[in-house]
Each structure stands twice: as C-alpha cells, then as structure tokens.
C-alpha cells in the first residue's frame, strides 16, 4: 500500500526476546514485518586490543571470556592457532580430551538454545525441563574441567586436567540418560503441532543466500550446505573419530532446530567414542608455553554456532602482535534480515532463536583510516 504508515518497533537493546543487548529496528505494517535493521555497539569490550597487551599465556583466559557459552571452543581455537605459529606438538591424549570437552560444550549450548526456543514461543514447560536436563552435562563438564561453565581447560600444548577411569564410567552413565532425554525432545519437536506451526515455513533461507551472505554452522547446514570445520580442517582429534555431518533441506527455522537435535546425537556418540578410545600418555608439555617464535597462523574450529576463526601474528617474545577473532554469530546475526521477508511480527523471536544469537562474542569495532581521517564503520556494512 502506498502512503501507509509503518510503526517502528524497537526490539532491543533491552527486550524479553533478547538475552544480550543488540537493537533490531523492526518496521511493521500491522503485524507484517517490512524491514529489520540490526544495529550493534552495546556490548563492545575491546578483547582483541586487550589480547595485544597481555602475554600469550594470559590471552588463553581472555579468549575463554569472549563467549561464555562456548569458552572451551574459543580456547581450543586460540591454542590451535598458537600451536601452529610455534610448531608445537600436542600429545594425542590431550587432543582427545579437547574433543570430549568441545562436544560436551556443543551439547549444552544446543540444549540451552532449545530452552530459549521454548521461552520465546511461549512454551515455559519446555524451557524448564530442558534446563533441568542440561544440568547433567554441566555436571560432567565440572567433573572433567573443574568448572560448570567457564572451564579454562585447554592450554597451548595440551590440557590442564586428566581423566580417571572412574570418571569415564560416570560420563558414560550420564550420557546414556542425556541421550534418552534428547530422543524425547526430538519426538516433541517432530510431533508437537504448535511448535511445527510456529517454526516450519518461517524464516526461509535459500542456498543462494547462504553463499551470498556467508552463513555458517547449523544455519547453513539446514539449507543443505554441507559445511562443517570438524571434517574440513584438522583440529583436536576429529580426524580419528567417525561422525556424520547433519544436513536438511527445508531451509526454515524448524529445520535449523532439527539439525541441532540430530547433531546432539552425533556429539554424544563422539564423546562416547573418544572416552572409549582415549590414548595413553601425557596431557601437555612439562612447562607452560610462554613465548612463541615469530610467525603467523590461522585456525578454524566448529563452534556450536558455526565456523570460528582465530588469526594470530607473533613477532617473537611473550606477547602477540595481533589477535583477530571472527565469530560465527558475526555473519549469522548481521545478515539475518534476508530471513524476515514476509514474516509476521510473531515470527521474529522464532527466526531469531533459530540463529542462536550470541551478541557479546560478535561485537567488534572497526576503525578505517581513509585520507588521514579515521572513520568508524558499522558492522552491518562490513558483513555485507
């Protein structure tokens, strides 16, 4: 309709649908979404700059704090990158332990997302029950690493704690229970008519858009793009462990959720395989690695939300010259407006949750110097 007036509804920076601050300026006509403009900058912490000021060893803990949910994965990626710069060998047992923790983290991250999905589509019971079942994974993480969430487990050259046979038995027992619960939730997602009504056919993302905007992770896989760093690149012990890459072809919010549900089964299998085939040997170098020789390297790992990239330049000594972090949410969130075509306002939370938004890890500030004049570029411009 020409001449009709739109209402602009701000979703954020503080809003019940968001758990971290970001602003989506949503233009609606009645209940129909006309346009969505993401705008960032509420959660910038300057971690890349901090990394340059601190030593290689202390940066491990900074990397772990980029994202609370996937901290083991961030430290894994950072350590892999340091090891590539310094040609440091990692003992095979440490590689397997890294794999176990990475997959446990993927399980609890995906389960958290199911809980948030329940909350966002008004299904409180799902939220409460998933959060209860997720707790057993966090207990496992505490058992292995010493902490429920912020593990600080992975170090350059190895890991910090070893597994005992008794702990392996506990892990297996807990994983059996979790697998049974995931089966139940899969049934819920497949059979609950209201969940299907809310999610299927919503937020369509076709394959061309995945390539054009560079979506990564489960979002790309739900549109039929078989992209998974775990089998494309070598890190941790993934090249020794058999697993499937889950893809679906429905391209909607529901299929993004189902990809994650099926990935949970794969993750549980990977952890079980890893604890069964755990090699003997040391778990890390005798002394902490404090200095890294000059050089540069790039490392990629598969975070729960997609491909995570660390790029580190070292000029020798104990401090990095540059640490560049590129998180999966960066692409997935900033390009999300392609999914809101013809969506209803009520679809917005359902689409947003299927992207697994993690705002604090994607906040970057970029200053571009042009003709001697410094100019801040918005992230949205850069992501395109």
């Amino acid at each position, binding site marked *: 309709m020409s001449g009709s007036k739109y*209402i602009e*509804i701000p979703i954020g920076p503080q809003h019940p649908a968001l758990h971290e601050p970001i602003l989506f300026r949503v233009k609606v006509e009645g209940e129909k979404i006309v346009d969505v403009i993401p705008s960032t900058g509420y959660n910038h912490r300057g971690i890349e700059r901090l990394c340059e000021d601190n030593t290689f060893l202390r940066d491990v803990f900074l990397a772990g704090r980029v994202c609370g949910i996937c901290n083991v994965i961030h430290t894994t990626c950072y350590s892999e990158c340091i090891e590539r710069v310094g040609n440091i060998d990692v003992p095979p047992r440490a590689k397997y332990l890294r794999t176990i923790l990475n997959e446990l983290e993927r399980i609890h991250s995906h389960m958290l997302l199911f809980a948030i999905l329940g909350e*966002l*589509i008004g299904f409180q*019971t799902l939220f*409460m029950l998933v959060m209860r079942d997720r707790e057993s994974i966090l207990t496992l993480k505490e058992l292995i690493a010493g902490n429920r969430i912020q593990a600080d487990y992975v170090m350059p050259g190895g890991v910090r704690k070893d597994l005992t046979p008794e702990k392996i038995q506990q892990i297996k027992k807990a994983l059996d229970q979790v697998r049974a619960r995931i089966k139940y939730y899969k049934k819920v997602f497949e059979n*609950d008519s*209201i969940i299907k009504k*809310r999610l299927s056919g919503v937020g369509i993302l076709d394959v061309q858009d995945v390539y054009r905007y560079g979506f990564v992770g489960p979002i790309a896989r739900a549109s039929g793009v078989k992209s998974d760093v775990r089998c494309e690149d070598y890190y941790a012990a993934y090249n020794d462990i058999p697993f499937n890459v889950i893809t679906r072809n429905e391209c909607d919010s529901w299929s993004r959720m189902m990809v994650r549900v099926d990935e949970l089964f794969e993750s549980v299998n990977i952890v079980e395989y890893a604890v069964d085939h755990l090699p003997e040997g040391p778990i890390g170098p005798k002394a902490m690695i404090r200095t890294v020789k000059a050089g540069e390297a790039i490392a990629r790992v598969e975070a729960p939300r997609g491909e995570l990239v660390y790029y580190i330049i070292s000029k020798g000594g104990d401090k990095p010259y540059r640490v560049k972090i590129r998180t999966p949410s960066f692409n997935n969130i900033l390009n999300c407006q392609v999914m809101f075509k013809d969506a209803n306002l009520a679809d917005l939370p359902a689409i947003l949750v299927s992207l697994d938004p993690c705002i604090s890890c994607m906040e970057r500030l970029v200053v571009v110097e042009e003709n001697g004049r410094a100019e801040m570029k918005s992230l949205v411009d850069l992501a395109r």
Partner: protein
Amino acid sequence: MVFDLTFFFGILVFPGLLFILTLALLYDWIERKMAARMQNRMGPSFAGPAGILQPLADYIKLFTKEEIIPEGVNTFIYTLSPIISFSIFVLAILFIPINGLNVFGSAGFEGDLLLIFALATFGSFTIFLSGWSSSNPYSEMGSVRVLYQFLGYDIPTILLAISPAMLAGSLSMTNIVRMQAIPFVFIIPWVFVLFTISMQAELEEDPFDIPHAGTEIVAGYETEFSGGKLAFLNLTRDMQIVFGAAVTVTLFLGGPLGPVLFSPSWLWYTLWFVLKSILVICIIEGIECACARLRIDQVIRGNWKLMIPLSIASLITTIVLRSFIAFVV
C-alpha cells in the same frame, strides 16, 4: 430506603467483593503452584503455608510502588481504564449464583446470562483502551491484538453458552443451575470441550497467550503501567480467570449444586462451587502448561474457519437433542 445491613454485607463481604477477591488470589496461587509442579519447580513457598499468601504479597508490593505516568498518554483513560475493567469483571461475577443465589440475594432475572457476557465484552474493551491510551508501540500492538482476539472469540463463546441455556429452557443462570440434576457436561460433553477451548482464548491462556506475548511485544497493553494501575490490571486478569471458571461451572458442572450433609446449605453450595471451579482452573492451567503460543493470524483463522462453524454445528445438535429429549420425556 431502609439501610439493609445484610444486603451490603452480601455485596461487600460474602459472597461479594471480599470473597471474590480471596477466590482470585487463591486461584492465582493454585495456577502458579500447579504450573510449577508441572515444570518440575517448587513454585511460591515462602509467604504463608506452602506460599499461599504469595499473590497477596505481590499485590501489596505493587500497590506500594511508585506510579509513573509517561509523557504523551491520554491521562484520563490511562488512569481510569484499569479500575473500570476491574470493576466490570467484579460486577459480572456478582450476578453468578455462587451460594445458590446471586450476590444481590435474588434468583437473578431472565437474561442475566446475556448480561454477564455483555459485561465481559465491555471489560475486554476497557483493557484495549488501557493499552491504546498509553502511546507506546508495544502497548498499541498488544491492545489491537486484544481486540482481534476477544471480538473473534466472543462469538463462539456466546454461541456455545446458549446450548446449556437451550437445554434448561431459560436464559437465567439460576434456572440453568436448577435444571442440572445431571450436570450438562455429561449430556453435551462436546459443547463443554469447545467451550473450554474458547474460554482459553478469552482468558488469554496458552496457546492463545497472544495479547501479552512477552518475547514479541514485551508486556502488551500492560507495558507502560506501573504501581497501583498495574496491580489493578493484574487483578483484572485474575478476575477474568475467576469469571471464566465460574461461568464454566455454572453452565456445565451444575454450579453450586451438590450433596448437602448438614445445614446451613449455603456453606455447602459455596464449597461445591469453589471445588468445581478449582477443577476448571486445573484444566485451564494444564492446557496452558502443555502448549506453546500460536501466532495471531493462526488464532484468528482458527476462530473464523473452525470455532464458529463448530459452535454453530454444536448448537444445532443441542437443539435436536433437546427436541429428542422433549419427545421421549
């Protein structure tokens, strides 16, 4: 006019305002406790035994809070609409025979069933006004959704409420109750099921929890309200639930009828009425906990394409059933 103490006692204390308020708080607590148990939580447990005073504590807290009137609101409607909507629902409940008679001590009049539904519709409209006057995009979206949903679902609700009246041959609630030696839920169970669904929509419970869908439009029409006004809006919501339960009990579960073991009989009538409405509350809350929220367009499509034809069909079957019963008896 003679100052009649019992009349004022009836209106203000029992079975009037105070009793209804107590019921509202009790049902609020039952809802919260039941939802918590279904979700593997504890629920309210500190204020009073098993947390039964928690709703009261919440209202006291709200009434002591600062009230903020944002700039640019229509102050007159904004201030008045929470109180008016609350009063309208209380007035509607006063007509329902709780202890055998209604609050005014009479047996009601022919047509009070229509009156309470008219009052409920008007109450919903004042809820719409409260959101519309607060000049906030979330409130506007929320209040428009209230209108969509209530105007749509009022039609099947009233059509379905006609069925018991048809069976009883009267539009007076006292007469409908009197005819229910066998509660109507056993005679026309399909109408009861449909009525429960449309009540779910009238009470804004999941899966029809759309007008205040938190993750889309924050608190819907309540967004700009604070302090006492918010307390009155919340009380309105509790009153709506009492109203819904009371109407369902009156129309389908035989109202206050039940075995009377010893006198006074009004005590037993009240007890049966409360027990039956707790049953209804449990059904409502069970559906609420087991469902996710639908989308507004799905709800409206479901109303016009499914609920209204079904309620018309059930009305026709009830008419046929009634002529059949009249023919046999």
